[in-house]
């Protein structure tokens, strides 16, 4: 099929203080995978929300197969044939797959018929899914399949996918791409939102690049280098982090036989984890979210305590010590969740500087806070890490995600840690800021610190790690030198593809 499915012209949407989309125009052809590329805050989400009828544009028009298209609500968009898989799933844990799918339908068929339909669609597209399983027991990848199948049952003409691979292992990504390719071959158009350039190069026919709400360029991804696309996205020449020659020293952090029950009912149990990190070394830890990353950070930061010799720093037992005692010994941490964990949202940056800086920066005497010293420290973090804010008296929540992340990482780095544990250091951060954060981690390691970097961004881990390991259901894989690891090997370390290959081989057998 050829022809234009959806044509967007001059779409503008302004929110108080920010223009989310500024006269954006592009066309989506029938049966193409169209990438929407841009940094966080570039306006991708607002744009797709307008297509899906969740947000009304201030001005501009959309044309659907030659007819004016202005869905007043998602129901109307769905009726036209638009379906969307959101980045955050809207599923009920306590219900089973079929019940969840039925909830999103206007006229759900009988449960038995629906289950049969789900099974048929899931087999047809290589997305194995048992309609009777409870959603609470499914992995993130399987939950995404529920959302995709929910969309496919509507027989969509345009499928919008918002950052679909952020929760998947490489093998799961491969399976997903097979499904999307099959859909494309059947004539379904796909609007694929991502900032992962390599993915877009393998999958997409066409890409539209947004920056600060504006359409700044279009390209054919397969013919454009990832670097060129990244520079279009950022609008600047990218600084690739550089590392000095590795010179690793003594073992700084020694974790042996670390097991830990989760504190929350939905947490992951850490099971017998062993690893060491030497001075000057960065250990990258991959793994799909929810496989024990938060728990491992808590066990290393001191938020969760274990028996003394499970965690050792420079040979000293610290497993039983709390966060402040560990800070005294030079172990610092930066948790994943910026607002509410790494920083208090309604407190000022100065107060947030005190939050972890109290011990190593000597910001109290006899329990009384040295506010001028704390302000100085906060200003130093803001200056050296290029945190964009009108002043250190601003509340943490008034900063953008990337700026707050720079503050959180800078706050720890400037305390000259001997061991630094970071979880998702560049999550939701724009490419330029991410590069500077990575550079600061590399510099810190070059200065003799041992760094544990937990991340779901494999490119990031490959870029900065000396050695690589993965967490899977609370267990640690073997730790191997990062140089020379293939994507397949990494995928296996991350726990394989949860049996997804089977479905595709079945499909092959039937065909």
């Amino acid at each position, binding site marked *: 099929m050829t022809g234009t499915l959806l044509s967007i012209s001059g779409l503008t949407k302004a929110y108080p203080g920010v223009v989310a989309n500024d006269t954006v125009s592009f066309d989506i052809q029938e049966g193409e995978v169209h990438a929407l590329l841009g940094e966080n805050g570039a306006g991708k989400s607002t744009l797709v929300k307008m297509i899906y009828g969740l947000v009304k544009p201030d001005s501009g028009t959309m044309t659907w197969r030659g007819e004016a298209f202005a869905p007043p609500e998602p129901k109307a968009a769905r009726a036209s044939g638009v379906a969307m898989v959101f980045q955050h799933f809207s599923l009920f844990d306590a219900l089973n797959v079929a019940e969840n799918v039925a909830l999103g339908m206007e006229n759900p068929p009988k449960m038995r018929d629906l289950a049969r339909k789900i099974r048929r669609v899931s087999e047809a597209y290589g997305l194995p899914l048992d309609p009777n399983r409870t959603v609470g027991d499914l992995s993130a990848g399987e939950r995404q399949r529920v959302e995709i199948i929910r969309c496919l049952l509507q027989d969509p003409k345009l499928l919008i996918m918002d950052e679909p691979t952020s929760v998947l292992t490489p093998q799961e990504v491969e399976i997903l791409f097979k499904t999307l390719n099959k859909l494309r071959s059947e004539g379904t158009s796909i609007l694929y939102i991502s900032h992962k350039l390599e993915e877009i190069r393998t999958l997409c026919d066409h890409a539209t690049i947004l920056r600060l709400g504006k359409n700044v360029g279009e390209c054919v991804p397969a013919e454009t280098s990832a670097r060129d696309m990244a520079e279009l996205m950022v609008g600047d020449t990218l600084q690739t982090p550089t590392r000095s020659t590795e010179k690793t020293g003594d073992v700084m952090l020694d974790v042996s036989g670390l097991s830990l029950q989760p504190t929350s009912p939905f947490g992951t149990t850490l099971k017998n984890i062993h690893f060491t990190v030497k001075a000057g070394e960065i250990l990258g830890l991959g793994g799909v979210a929810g496989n024990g990353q938060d728990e491992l950070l808590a066990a290393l930061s001191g938020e969760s305590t274990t028996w003394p010799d499970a965690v050792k720093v420079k040979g000293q037992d610290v497993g039983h010590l709390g966060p402040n005692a560990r800070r005294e010994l030079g172990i610092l941490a930066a948790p994943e969740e910026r607002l509410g964990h*790494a920083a208090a*949202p309604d407190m000022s940056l100065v107060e947030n500087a005190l939050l972890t800086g*109290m011990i190593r920066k000597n910001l109290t005497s006899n329990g009384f806070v040295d506010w001028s010293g704390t302000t100085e420290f906060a200003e130093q973090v803001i200056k050296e890490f290029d945190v964009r804010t009108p002043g250190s008296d601003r509340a943490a929540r008034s900063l953008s995600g990337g700026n707050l992340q720079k503050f959180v990482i800078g706050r720890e780095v400037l305390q000259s840690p001997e061991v630094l544990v970071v979880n998702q250091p560049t999550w939701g951060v724009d490419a330029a800021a991410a590069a500077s954060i990575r550079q600061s981690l590399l510099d810190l390691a070059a200065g003799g610190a041992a760094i544990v970097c937990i991340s779901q961004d494999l490119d990031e881990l490959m870029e900065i790690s000396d050695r690589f390991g993965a967490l899977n259901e609370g267990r640690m894989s073997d730790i191997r030198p990062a140089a020379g690891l293939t994507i397949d090997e990494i995928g296996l370390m991350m726990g394989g593809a949860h049996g997804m290959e089977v479905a595709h081989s079945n499909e092959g057998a039937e065909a």
Partner: protein
Amino acid sequence: MIKLEKRAQPSRTLALATPVIAVVITMIAGGLLFATLGKNPIEAISTIFWEPLFGEFAFYYRPQLLVKGGPLILIAIGLSLGFRAGIWNIGAEGQYIMGAICGAGAGLAFYPMESIFIFPIMIIAGALGGWIWAMIPALLKVKFGTNEILVSLMLVYVAEQLLASVSLGLLKNPEGFGFPGSRNLQEYASAHNAELIAGTGMHWGVLFAFIAVILSYVLLNKHILGFNIRLTGEAPRAARFAGVNPTRLILFCLGTSGALAGLAGMFEVSGPAGQVSIDFGVGYGFTAIIVAFLGRLHPVGILLAGLLMALTYIGGEIAQSNMGLPAAAIQVFQGMLLFFLLALDLLTNFRIRLAVKGAA
């Protein structure tokens, strides 16, 4: 269509202005209420707010402002520490009663001996009484994870029963002709919490309340413990990350609020009230919760709110006796004050936008 929009930064101007606006709106709504009851609204409002301060009998009412405001402020300061940290001590009334029983009991144990050491001992006993009563919900919460709201509230009723029991038994005045109630501490010089300056209403409890305001201000703004309290209230997970020990914080906050409530009870029983009696508890412990929120959980705010609350109490009583307003109407009026205050509080974090419906 009205839309609420979260502000990036809480508005400081509005944080200061909303209590004043709330008082004004309360006056208007209260005036309407009094008008529907057939009273002159302007007269009623001025009776409540003007009469106690500048009226004909102001010489009598003005000291009452400190007498009523003192315990409210003392209790509310203690409560505000816990409230800031998300620890909800609702049972200050019980701790207040226990402080009074222990304080008065300690004093009466020495009767009729006279000594300058008796009053300080009573102060310590009063604080201890409130502290122990607050430690019950604190320990249960720390050990078994019970809800401190329920436990502390239930202990109010236990304390009331104890109060009745000692009024009729242990502390009953042997020379009281069989009437319930203890000896009158106002007639026992060593135990009497007399006015420090005659005719001002300023007694030891009021002085303690002012000291508590200052100490609480210093604690919250200058000390790491105050920072930890605020941090725990705003972001519990960040507090844990910052190394705050939640157990210790619960014990400190509940303990301090209990001790201050106990002190308030002890100063009340040895001064304005004079004796332990069945009807000693008049709800200061509950009203202090309103005072704490009315004052934005800020020490200076609590000081002003305590005085304002005392004013509406005194003015309310005058309005009842002079104008024949029903007591319930006065209580509704006081309730309105809290309601408008909390409702307007929204404006410090949100702004209201009027959006035209249906605009594409």
